Every structure is written in C-alpha cells, then in structure tokens.
C-alpha cells in the first residue's frame, strides 16, 4: 500500500503546495521549521482539510481529488493520526480513549477493553486505565494518544511529534514500541519530528519542508 500525494491548499495567509510519494511500508520523517506546513500536510492526508488542487491516493484508492469530485471523509480513510496537540477525549478514561477507535472497527466490547488495556500496558500506563483523560499529565496523555492511534492498526499512520513531552526513558521505550508495531504493519508511516534521533532510530527516509512549498529529500 503506497501513498501518492500532491497537495495544494490555502489556509488564510498560508499556502501549501507539495507532492511526494511514500512506498508501501516505508517510514518517512517530515522535518522542517515551525510553521513550514508539516501539520497541514498530515491534515490534508487525513481528510481534515480538503484539497483545493492535487490528489491523494492510498493503496490505489483515490481519497481526495477536487477535479474528479472525489472526497473520502476522514472516518472512511482508515488513517491513524497522533495529533501534535494530543486531543484526548477529556471526558473519557484512558482506556476508553484507546478503545474508541476499535468500536468503529466492529470489535466487541470485551475484546475492545482487553486490547485497549494491552496497549496501555505497552506504553507503561496500565495503572492509569481508569483515569479520566483530563487528569493525565502531559507525558501520560501523549502516550495514551500514541496508543489510541496504534490500537486501530490503520492502513497508514501520521504521527505529529509523538514523542514530545516524554521523559528520556519513555522516548526510548516509545520509539521501540513504535518500531516493533511498524514492523508488523504494512502501509506508509509519516512522522513529524524535530529530533534527528527519531529519524535515525526508525530508519526513516527524511523529507524537509520549508515555507509550504519547498519539499526536499535529505540524506
């Protein structure tokens, strides 16, 4: 399953216009200065910002193409996202947050809860399963967000600084967890990061975005 993207959108003062391709099972690190448009790229891919021009194709399926009048809604894309700003559901417990996505995949309640618990244990938060998300610390919330996105085993993964706010040990653990998960998973993975270590550890190809329009491969 490969990802083909040509993205052109205008958000008020900011214009994004880039094209790239991510092969099946490939990990790409998306880097670049603040405000370059990295998050906007992920949002366009996830369907949270419809394209103005260009097209998005994932595994041969057209997801967005304004010219052809095609737009697949976010909930139908099966693309997992870790948001830069977390976005845990504050009124749900950590466990319910992680289990949330499994429901739409038709997983039964007991199975959902056991899988979610499993994921919370993998990110080291087994003890906080029943804690309301609004009471979690910054780093804990980040881990739950990662678990929530990985738990649904989506066709593609978009991670926006997933390791920010994590303590040093946790960063190492999470990188390892992610690496192992990605090894099982096919499908492309796009990782936004400011830490070169992330790129190295995950063995990812690196794309550097500047000013919304300059996208270049780094070696």
């Amino acid at each position: 399953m490969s990802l083909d993207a040509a993205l052109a959108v205008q958000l008020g003062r900011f214009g994004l216009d880039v094209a790239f391709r991510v092969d099946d099972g490939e990990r790409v690190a998306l880097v670049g200065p603040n405000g370059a448009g990295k998050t906007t790229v992920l949002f366009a891919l996830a369907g949270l910002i419809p394209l103005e021009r260009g097209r998005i194709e994932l595994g041969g399926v057209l997801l967005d193409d304004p010219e052809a009048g095609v737009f697949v809604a976010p909930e139908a894309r099966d693309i997992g996202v870790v948001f830069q700003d977390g976005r845990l559901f504050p009124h749900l417990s950590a466990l319910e947050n992680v289990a949330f996505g499994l429901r739409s995949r038709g997983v039964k309640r007991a199975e959902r809860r056991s899988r979610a618990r499993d994921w919370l244990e993998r990110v080291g938060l087994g003890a906080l399963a029943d804690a309301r998300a609004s009471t979690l610390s910054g780093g804990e919330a980040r881990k739950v967000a990662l678990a929530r996105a990985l738990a649904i085993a989506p066709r593609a993964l978009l991670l926006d600084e997933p390791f920010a706010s994590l303590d040093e040990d946790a960063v190492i653990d999470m990188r390892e967890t992610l690496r192992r998960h990605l090894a099982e998973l096919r499908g492309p993975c796009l990782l936004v990061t400011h830490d070169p270590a992330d790129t190295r550890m995950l063995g990812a190809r690196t794309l550097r975005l500047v000013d919304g329009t300059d996208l270049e491969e780094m070696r």
Partner: protein
Amino acid sequence: MKARRSRGARALPLPVLLPVLCGAALLGVPLFALVARAPWGRLATELASPEVLTALQLSLYCSVSATALSTLLGVPLAWLLARGEFRGRRLLRALVMLPMILPPVVGGVALLLAFGRRGLVGAWLDQAFGIQLPFTLAGAVLAETFVAMPFLVIAAEGGFRQVDRRLEQAAATLGASRLRVFARITLPLAAPALGAGAALCWARALGEFGATITFAGNLPGRTQTLPLAVYIALETRPEAAFAMSLVLLAVALAVLVALRETWTGR
C-alpha cells in the same frame, strides 16, 4: 490537569455584585410578595383536594413527556443547526424560534388548524388511524412540546457550537461516523448546555397554559394541568389560584434543586 476549588470564598467585585442584587431583586421580590400574601391556611386544603392533586399529576406527566419528546426530536435538530452545512440554516433556526413568539392562544389555534379534527394533518390522522388529539392527554403533551421545544433546540445548539471541533476531528480519524462522534463526543461535552436546555424546556412546559387549553381543552382529570386549574380558579377564587401557584412553584423548586448537578451538567 484541573485545579481544585480554591480555599476561602472571595468577595464579589462590585460591578458584579450590583447587577446580581438588582437581578435577584427583580426576580425575587415578586416571588417573595406572592409567598408573603399566600393563604397559608388554604395551602393544606388545596393540596389535599383531589382535583389539585390530579392536576399536579397531569402537569408533571405532561411536562416530563413534553421534555422527553422535545429532547428526542429537538436534539437532532439542534445538531443539524450547529454542525450541518446547508443553505437556509439561519432561516431554519429562525423558524424553530417562532413558536416561542406566537401568543400561546394563537399557537393553540395553529395547532388546531394542523392537528385538529379538521386540521391539515389531523383530518388524515383521524380518517387513517382514528387518532384524535384535541381533548386528549396526548394533545396536551403535543401542545406543550410545540411551545417548549424551541427552548431546548436553541440552548442545545449553542452548546454544540461551543464544543471543540478538534476533538470531533480526532474522533473522525478514529473511524467514528458522524453520528457516533455526536453521541460520544459532542453530546457529553455539551452536557451543561443540554442540561440547561432541558431544564428550560421542562419549566416552560410545566407553566404552559395558553396553547394547551386552546388545543387540548380543559377537562378536570383528563387534560386539566395545574396552570389551567390556576387560570380557571383566578376568575372566582383568586386565593385558591395563588395557593395552587405556590404548589406548582414548590414542586418545581423541589425538582430543580433535587436534579443531580451532573445531570443538568453541573
């Protein structure tokens, strides 16, 4: 992370205190005056009268049913107004508010024209199913719903709009349909506004009088709710009417205070 309640109460700033006192006086003094003038001796008598008790029961039944019906029909409407993207949304919202503005008796006449024996829909209901709404309890519920539902719709819509769309987006990327996003994210997060809307709707339905008496009529034991009984009694026995009003207020007060704060979103 949430902060807990701070130690020690702090004094209110004057620009808040002054209007709060004026507002409380404006609402409170008339109520107090009514209570002060109340025929306390009669209160017990009225409360013991089977007519008043029946009317009270009917009031509670109708207002709760109307609130339930309003919630069932109004919440989806509010969601559509808050999150739907279609032309004429503002017009729809304005239309939803019109029953609030219509003088209640005219509202009752409009209901008769629609759901009465000869009404647009009513004639068909009668012929096809033998359903007649005027002079029935269901008719009273319908009339109260007509008048009270707009309050719920508009209050709930305000609440839905205030919900952080970013969370709704996150839920969508997790594969949740729009309906599920609404049920699991928007609705619980808008609970305070929804609770307020339901409370407004219930209170309005409980006090409703004009549309109900015009559409459903006024038969003690069948369609006579407490406000109708009050209105009728006002003509000849104003003291009894005041006593019944106090009963109505007391019951409403008890219910509103007893509501768990979380239910009304508090």
